[in-house]
């Protein structure tokens, strides 16, 4: 036992392996980071090569080791110590600089609009998009720009969780423009064979920079990395990386010269600082209203469809019983997330539902399956002898349901229904995947932009509780009122 412990200590004291663990999101894809098609266990992209160049530059035969992390969680993960350096098209923002150790910028990008070819002559900037739907990736500088433009010029920002669907929805007409980094826009255009939309490259909405992000306590390593990056700019190795990935142009040359000349710590487009955190409160309030609306409408749909399904199962013919059972089992047996995607994207070829309607439909039809089982159980819990007693009194089946079975079943169903509504309130967070910005999504955006989950998380929890607790209280009061002694 002691020998084993000693062995552990010796092992622990051995020098750390010479690796630079860096985090990025391969889901973001090329040219940043993507799984290598020839060997999907490896990643490739200009950020991969930048990380390798940094590791080499740090000396001692160090090599770079990739760790997959969700893009929006890079800041939190690096601060937790999951990896030393976050690189994956990480944007330079004042908030990030305030909360983390940030490297000097190594790439300059332009926030550019993409529009349908027919609109290219009419749209030159955000000012031309008053009242129009403009898509972007959540938690980005572009998103902040759109939020500012919403207040100043009246554009309607639509937030996505990925940077592929915005362009698809632009082509199909669900949105009128996309605002994102020019290399993301160019990649999307290449994927579509150069047709479907045009990029307003010459009229950038803003300029931004990619940086590496490290834990605040890791400033020494950050300084070493800065030195490596400067060296890579001087010796042309960074330029070669960008050339290989077709993202090099004259603006990068000017940008490199500026960085080397001033050793600047460039700042990106204006975004929220912690001091401006209060500015998010109205957005959170709006998102809370969306959550409440989605939940209430979905629950109403779930109750109506659930009652129909339950009636089918209890009173229907064999065919109806089988059909309702199949619906319930399919809906309960597949993820809600999948159902959301199918209704919003899968059906887009047949019927192009607005995101809000698709969200209410998906949640409502999903919860209907659960409600149906609650109502069926509640209907069957009413003693059969009471139904027979009602029959001997000459009541019709419909009257028995309305006057005897239904009212008693409702009492049995009330508690599980309340439970379901509270669950639905929280499940409504999933609808952000189809661009509906509700409370959790808005909180994530808020947290990413200020670089901390503490205040946004607490605020979000308070709002959810403020919505669910009164509901539980109302349900208890109703139960008490309906409870016969």
């Amino acid at each position, binding site marked *: 036992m002691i020998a084993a412990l000693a062995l552990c200590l010796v092992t622990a004291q051995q020098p750390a392996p010479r690796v630079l663990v860096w985090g990025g999101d391969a889901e973001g894809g090329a040219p940043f980071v993507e799984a290598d098609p020839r060997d999907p266990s490896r990643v490739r992209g200009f950020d991969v090569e930048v990380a390798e160049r940094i590791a080499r530059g740090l000396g001692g035969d160090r090599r770079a080791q990739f760790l997959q992390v969700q893009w929006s969680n890079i800041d939190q993960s690096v601060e937790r110590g999951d990896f030393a350096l976050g690189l994956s098209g990480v944007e330079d923002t004042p908030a990030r600089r305030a909360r983390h150790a940030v490297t000097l910028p190594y790439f300059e990008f332009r926030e550019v609009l993409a529009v349908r070819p027919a609109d290219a002559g009419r749209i030159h900037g955000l000012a031309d998009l008053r009242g129009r739907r403009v898509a972007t990736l959540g938690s980005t500088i572009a998103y902040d720009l759109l939020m500012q433009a919403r207040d100043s010029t009246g554009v309607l920002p639509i937030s996505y969780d990925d940077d592929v669907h915005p362009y698809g929805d632009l082509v199909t007409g669900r949105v009128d423009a996309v605002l994102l980094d020019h290399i993301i826009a160019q990649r999307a255009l290449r994927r579509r064979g150069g047709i479907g939309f045009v990029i307003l490259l010459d009229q950038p909405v803003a300029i931004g920079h990619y940086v590496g992000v490290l834990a605040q306590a890791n400033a020494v390593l950050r300084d070493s990395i800065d030195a490596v990056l400067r060296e890579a700019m001087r010796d042309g190795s960074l330029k070669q990386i960008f050339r290989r990935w077709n993202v090099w142009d004259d603006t990068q040359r000017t940008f490199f010269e500026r960085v080397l000349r001033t050793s600047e710590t460039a700042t990106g487009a204006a975004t929220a600082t912690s001091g401006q955190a209060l500015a998010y409160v109205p957005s959170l309030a709006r998102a809370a209203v969306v959550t409440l609306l989605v939940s209430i409408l979905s629950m109403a749909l779930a109750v109506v469809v659930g009652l129909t399904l339950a009636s089918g199962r209890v009173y229907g013919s064999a065919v109806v019983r089988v059909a309702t059972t199949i619906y319930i089992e399919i809906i309960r047996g597949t993820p809600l997330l999948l159902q959301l995607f199918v209704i919003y994207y899968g059906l887009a070829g047949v019927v192009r539902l607005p995101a809000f309607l698709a969200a209410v439909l998906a949640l409502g039809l999903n919860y209907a399956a659960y409600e149906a089982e609650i109502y069926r159980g509640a209907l069957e819990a009413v*003693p059969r*002898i*009471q139904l*027979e*007693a*009602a*029959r*001997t*009194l*000459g*009541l*019709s*089946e419909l*009257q028995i349901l309305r*006057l*005897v079975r239904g*009212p*008693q079943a409702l*009492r049995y169903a009330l508690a599980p229904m309340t439970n379901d509504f509270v669950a639905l309130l929280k499940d409504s967070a999933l609808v952000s995947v189809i661009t509906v910005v509700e409370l959790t999504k808005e909180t994530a955006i808020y947290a990413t932009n200020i670089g901390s989950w503490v205040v946004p998380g607490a605020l979000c929890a308070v709002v959810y509780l403020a919505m669910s607790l009164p509901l539980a209280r109302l349900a208890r009061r109703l139960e008490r009122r*309906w409870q*016969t*002694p």
Partner: protein
Amino acid sequence: MSAPPLLVIDRLRVRYETRDVLRALSLEVARGELVALMGPSGVGKTTALRAVAALQRFDEGQIVVDGFVLAPGPLPPESRLGVLRRRVGLVFQAHALFEHLTAQSNVTLALRHVLGKPRVEADTIATRLLSELDVGTRAGAWPRQLSGGEAQRVAIARALALDPALLLMDEPTAALDPARRSALGATLRRLCEQGRGLLVATHDAEFARAHADRLVNLT
């Protein structure tokens, strides 16, 4: 010429899968007559009452209630049983009161929704019925607040709401003490005096001998 019997059960046979629960039961109940259907538990007394109330299908024989004929085979749809429902009342052994309604509302339910009487009239009738059965003061009570004897009398009042000519009762003395049994006997006699026929399934021989006009033994 004497009046035709209120209830005629003729060679009634009920099978559950391969077992005969009732085989060739025949009996008659006249108006104003209290007939006790006797026999030990499991002999088919409840099944016979349920068949008369059209809650239970039967395989052979015939049941005629005041001219309404029930034939063997599947139960007719409720839409064709309206006449029977108004002629036959059934008091279940477990009373089967509607738990979400007060005693008063248990009685007014059929008055309002089957006979279509206005609320005030239904309430007047219910109050009279409950008072006649000595539970007038319990009109506002919920079923769970009633004692066994009270619940039974509310159930009788509910069954009488449609003023049926024939009242069926299943084991009415099962949960009653001797004093209550005697009071129940007097109540049933009074119902007979009103011209109703009563068929009471019971295994309580003493009660049957004391209050019934006729005993029919099932073995």
